[in-house]
C-alpha cells in the first residue's frame, strides 16, 4: 500500500526550476532510495515533501491525505521525520535537549525517556555526550544525533538526506545497518544518497533523478546492475 505519493511535482527557487514534474511513490514498509548527482534535486524533493518549500504544482499524498501545502511543523506531526542535509543540529542546545526537541510533540515524560533509550541503543556514543553542546560534536557524531533526534519522533516515514556524508566507513556501515534494522521493525524509509552503491544495496526500490527529473526507477537490485546507473553513479 502506498504511504507516500508524489504526483507531477514542480518546484521553483525563484527562477530556477528545481523539480520538473517529479512523481514517485513510497510503499508502507519499504526502503526507497533517491539517487542522483549534485544539484539534481534530491534535497529539494525531500524539502517539498516536508513542506519547507512549496511546490508550484502537483500533489503530495501521504497516508491517503493530501499534504501538498502543509507547513513543515504540521507535516512533522503527521509522522514524517526529515533528517536534513548537513545535519542541522541545534548548536547551542545540549545533546539531550536536541533529542528532546525531536519529541517536541510528545507530552509524556516517560515516553520521551523510552524513546531516548532506544536512541542510545542505536547510538551508544550519544549517551556519553548528553551534556555537550550539539555544535561542538564532530561531524559523525552530529549525524548520529540528527538521526537520533528524528527517531525521537517515532515517525512512520523517515526521510534521510545523505546520512553517510562525511562519515567514517565503519559508521556508514553502521548507519546503513541501522536503517535496515529500523525498516525491519516496520519503519518506512525514503533515503537520499550520493553513495548510490550502498544505498541501492539496502533499498527495495530506487529512483534516479537528474536535473530535476526522474529518469529511471526500478528495484534496488536492478538498478545496481543497470549499465547507465553504473556508469553515472557507481563509477
Amino acid at each position, binding site marked *: 500500500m502506498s504511504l507516500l505519493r508524489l504526483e507531477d511535482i514542480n518546484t521553483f527557487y525563484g527562477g530556477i526550476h528545481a523539480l520538473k514534474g517529479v512523481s514517485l511513490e513510497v510503499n508502507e514498509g519499504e526502503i526507497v532510495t533517491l539517487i*542522483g*548527482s*549534485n*544539484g*539534481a534535486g534530491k534535497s529539494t524533493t525531500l524539502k517539498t515533501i516536508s513542506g519547507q518549500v512549496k511546490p508550484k504544482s502537483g500533489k503530495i499524498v501521504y497516508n491517503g491525505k493530501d499534504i501538498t501545502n502543509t507547513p513543515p511543523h504540521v507535516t512533522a506531526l503527521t509522522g514524517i521525520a526529515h533528517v536534513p542535509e548537513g545535519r542541522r543540529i541545534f548548536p547551542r542546545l545540549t545533546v539531550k535537549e536536541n533529542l528532546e526537541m525531536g519529541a517536541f510533540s510528545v507530552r509524556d515524560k516517560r515516553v520521551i525517556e523510552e524513546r531516548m533509550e532506544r536512541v542510545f541503543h542505536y547510538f551508544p556514543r550519544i549517551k556519553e555526550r548528553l551534556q555537550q553542546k550539539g555544535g561542538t560534536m564532530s561531524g559523525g557524531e552530529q549525524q548520529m544525533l540528527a538521526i537520533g533526534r528524528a527517531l525521537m519522533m517515532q515517525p512512520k516515514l523517515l526521510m534521510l538526506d545523505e546520512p553517510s556524508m562525511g562519515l567514517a566507513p565503519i559508521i556508514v556501515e553502521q548507519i546503513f545497518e541501522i536503517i535496515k534494522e529500523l525498516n525491519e521493525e516496520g519503519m518506512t524509509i525514503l533515503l537520499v544518497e550520493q553513495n548510490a552503491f550502498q544505498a541501492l544495496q539496502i533499498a527495495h526500490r530506487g529512483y534516479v533523478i*537528474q*536535473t530535476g527529473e526522474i529518469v529511471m526507477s526500478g528495484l534496488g537490485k536492478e538498478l545496481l546492475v543497470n549499465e547507465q546507473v553504473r556508469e553515472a553513479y557507481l563509477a
Partner: protein
Amino acid sequence: MKNWLHTIQQNKRLQAIIVGLYIVVTFFSLYLAQKSVVAFLLLLSSLLLLYFTTFSNRVKWLIGGVVMVVLLPLAASQGEAYQSYMEVATLVGIYIAMALGLNIVVGMAGLLDLGFVAFFALGAYTYGIFATGQANNFMPFGHYPLSGESFWVFIFIGCFVAALFGILLGVPVLRVKGDYLAIVTLGFGEIIRIIFNNLDKPVNITNGAMGLASVQPPRLFGIDFMYPSQFYYIVLVILITVIFAVRRLEFSKIGRAWKAVRENEIAAQAMGIHLVKTKLMAFAVGASFSGMMGVVFAAKQTFVDPTSFTLLESITILVMVILGGMGSVPGVILGAALVTILNLQVLTELTNWLNQLSLNGVINVPDALSPAKMQRFIFGVILILFALYRPQGLLPAKNPVFDEKELKDADKLVNAGVQKEVPQNVHLDS
C-alpha cells in the same frame, strides 16, 4: 513595458536623447519655476537616471559633473530659493560622504557601528576649537582664532584626527564581534559626545554645552566663504574625491579583504588576511571621511555644540546606508540623499503645506496632531514602508563583472599542458 525598457537598454543613442531631454526639461523648469522643490529634486534625479544608463563610466562622470558643477547651481541661482537649495545640497553632500564612510565599516567590512557620528564631531571640534578664540584657553603659544585660510589645512587635519581615533576605537573593538560591537561603538560615540559636553572643566577646551560660536569662515584668495552656494563647491570637491577613493578601494585588494572579513572571518584569515589590520583600516578610512566633513560642517554652521552629534544622528547615517543598500556605493549615495532631502526639504515643505491648509481652514486638525509635530511619525512610516518593499536596499550591491576576454588572453602561468588533462565535466548536471 519590459520590452520597451529593453530596447532602451540596447540603444545608447536613445539613452543619450532621453537623458539629455530630461536634463534640459528639468533644468528649465527649475530655472523658471524657482521655488519649485519638485523641479529641484527632478533635476537632481537626473543623476539617478544617468546611473541607469549604459554609458561608460567616464561619460557618466562627465555628464554628472556638468549637472552638479554647472547646471544645478546655475538653474537654482536664478532666484530667491538659491541659497536654501544650496544649503540642502551641501548638507546632502556632507551626509553622503559620511554615509560612504560608514558604508565601508558596516557595508563592506560588516562591522556594525552605532557611534559613527563621533568622528564627525571630532572633525568639527578640531576646526571649531582652533578657528575660534577657544584654543587660547589651553594653548600657550599661537594666536587664536586662526584665520580662515587655515581651513584648507584643517580638512586634512580633521581627516587625520578622525582616522587616528578610528584606530583607537578599533583596538579595543577587535575582540568584540557582531552586535557586541554595535554597543561598544555606541558607547564610544556617547563617550565622545559627553566628553565634549563636559570639557569646559577643569580646562576649558570645548566650551561644554555652550558650544563654540563664531567659527571663522574659510578664506581663499581673500574671499570669505559664507554662503551655502560657496560651501556647495567645497563639499562637491571633497565628495567627488571620496567617491573616487571608495570606488577604487572597493575593487582592490583592500576592498576584497574587507568583504572577505565580512563574509567569513575564519576563512579570511586562512587566506592570509590580517584581521586586526583590515578592520582597523576600515575604521580609519571610514572615519576619515567623516572627519573631513566635520571640519566643513563647523565652518558652514559657524557654530559647534554637542547637540549636533547625538546617537540619533549616528542612527540616521546608519539608516542611510541600510536603506540605500549595504555595501553598494551608488545605493548609499542615493540613500543618504533621500533621507537628507526627506528630512530637510520634503518633510518641512509638507508640514508647511499642511499647516497652510489648516490655517486657511481647508482641513482641520487637532493641535496635538499638528503636522509639524508629526514629522517623526511620517519619517517612521516612510522607513517602515521602504524597508518592507525594498528589503535589499534601494540599489543593492553588485559584484564587479569582468569580461572573459580580458581574463583569458594572457600567456599561461600555470603549465600550459595542464589544462587538457584537467577533467572538464564539473558542470555535469547544470
